[in-house]
C-alpha cells in the first residue's frame, strides 16, 4: 500500500525547477476531454480520475506517478483527469499545487463542467477510478470502487498495464 498522503492536497511537498514548471492543469469540457483521449490511440493509456476532495485519490496518486516513471520508456501514456469543483478557486489552486508537489509531469486535465454532470457523462459512480486503454483505443480495464466487494488496488493497475504491454507485438 502506498504511504498515506492525506494532507498532501493542501500542503504538498515543494516542487522546484524543471518538474514544477512542466506541470500543467488544462481546463477542458468532457467533450474536449474525449477528443484528447481519442488522440492517445496507438499507445497504451492510463487515465486516473481524481479530485482533491477524494482522500483515496490523493493516497493513490503517488503510485500513478511512480508507474509513469517506470513505464514511460515502454510507451505507456499517463493522464490525470481532475474532478474538483471548477468554480471553487481554492480547490483548483490546491489541485494545481498537489500536481506540482507530485511532479506530475504528464498531461493533467480539469473538467470544467459541474461535477455531478461530469460524473454522469463520464459514467462514473465514484472516484478514484482508473481507466486503461489498449493501443487500439479500446477501454480494456475499468478499475473502480463501484462494487463494495470488488475494489481495485495498485496491484490491479500494474497488472493491467503489464498485460497490455504483453500483448504488443515484439519489434
Amino acid at each position, binding site marked *: 500500500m502506498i504511504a498515506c498522503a492525506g494532507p498532501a492536497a493542501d500542503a504538498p511537498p515543494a516542487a522546484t525547477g524543471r518538474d514544477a514548471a512542466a506541470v500543467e492543469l488544462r481546463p477542458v469540457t468532457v467533450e474536449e476531454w474525449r477528443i484528447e483521449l481519442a488522440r492517445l490511440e496507438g499507445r497504451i493509456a492510463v487515465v486516473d480520475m481524481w479530485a482533491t*476532495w*477524494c*482522500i*483515496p485519490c490523493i493516497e493513490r496518486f503517488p503510485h500513478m506517478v511512480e508507474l509513469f516513471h517506470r513505464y514511460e520508456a515502454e510507451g505507456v501514456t499517463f493522464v490525470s483527469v481532475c474532478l474538483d*469543483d471548477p*468554480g*471553487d478557486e*481554492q*480547490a483548483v489552486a*490546491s489541485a494545481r499545487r498537489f500536481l506540482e508537489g507530485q511532479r506530475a509531469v504528464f498531461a493533467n486535465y480539469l473538467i470544467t463542467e*459541474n*461535477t*455531478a*454532470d461530469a*460524473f*454522469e457523462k463520464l459514467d462514473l*459512480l*465514484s*472516484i*478514484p477510478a482508473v481507466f486503461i486503454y489498449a493501443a487500439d483505443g479500446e477501454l480494456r480495464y475499468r478499475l473502480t*470502487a*463501484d*462494487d*463494495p*466487494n*470488488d*475494489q481495485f*488496488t495498485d496491484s490491479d493497475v500494474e497488472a493491467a498495464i503489464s498485460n497490455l504491454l504483453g500483448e504488443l507485438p515484439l519489434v
Partner: protein
Amino acid sequence: MTKKLTRMFVCLVGLLILGSAVASAGQYNAVVDIGAPMPEFSDLPATDGSTLSSDDLEEDIVVLVFLANHCPWVKGMDADLVALVDELEGQSVRFVGVSVNHRDDDRLPAMKEHALANGYNFTYVFDESQALGRRLGATTTPEYFVFGKDRRLAYMGLIHNSPASKRRDGTVNYTRGEPTDFYVRDAVAALSAGDEVPVAETRSHGCSVEYQRADG
C-alpha cells in the same frame, strides 16, 4: 427420455433457486435492485450512546443514508437532510445515518462531534463491520436507501437532483442550481399513500465509501 426431462427440470429448478438467492444489481448499484429486502443489523453504536438494531425500527418507512464526516458532499448536503427530517416529523418515518469508513475522522468520536455541530436530528450509527454498506452496495456518501413497511427497497440514490458540496471558503455549491426534484421526499410520500414511487433509482454522487479488502 423421461430421465433427460427430469434432469432438465431439476437443473431449471436449481437455477431458479440460485437466481432468487443472489441479489440482482440496479442501474447504478452493483449489488441490489429495487425490491431487495432491508439487511438485518444488530447493536450498531450510535452517536447518542445507544445502540440500534434493525428489529428496533418500528416506523412504516425507514431511510438509511450512508454518510462520512470528512466528505464535502456530505457537508454540503447536511442541512438538506436535517431539514427533510424536520419536515417529515410526525410521520411514521425513521432516518438512520450510517458511517462505515475506518479512517479516524469518520469513526464514532468524530461522528459525535459532526452530529452535534450540524444539528443531526436522526440516529447516526457506526458500522465497523461495513456489512450493511456491502449488502446494500453503497458506494458513495451521501447515498440514500428508502424502505417501505414491507422492508423492501423502494428508492435508492440522491436526496434530490442537485448534489451540493461545501467549498473551501465554507459556502455550499449546488451543482445543478436550486434543487427541483426531491427524490427521497417523493418516495416517502408515495409509500405513505400506498402509491408507486415515481423515481425509484438515481445515480448517487459523492465521496467513495472506503471498504476494507479481505486481503488487507
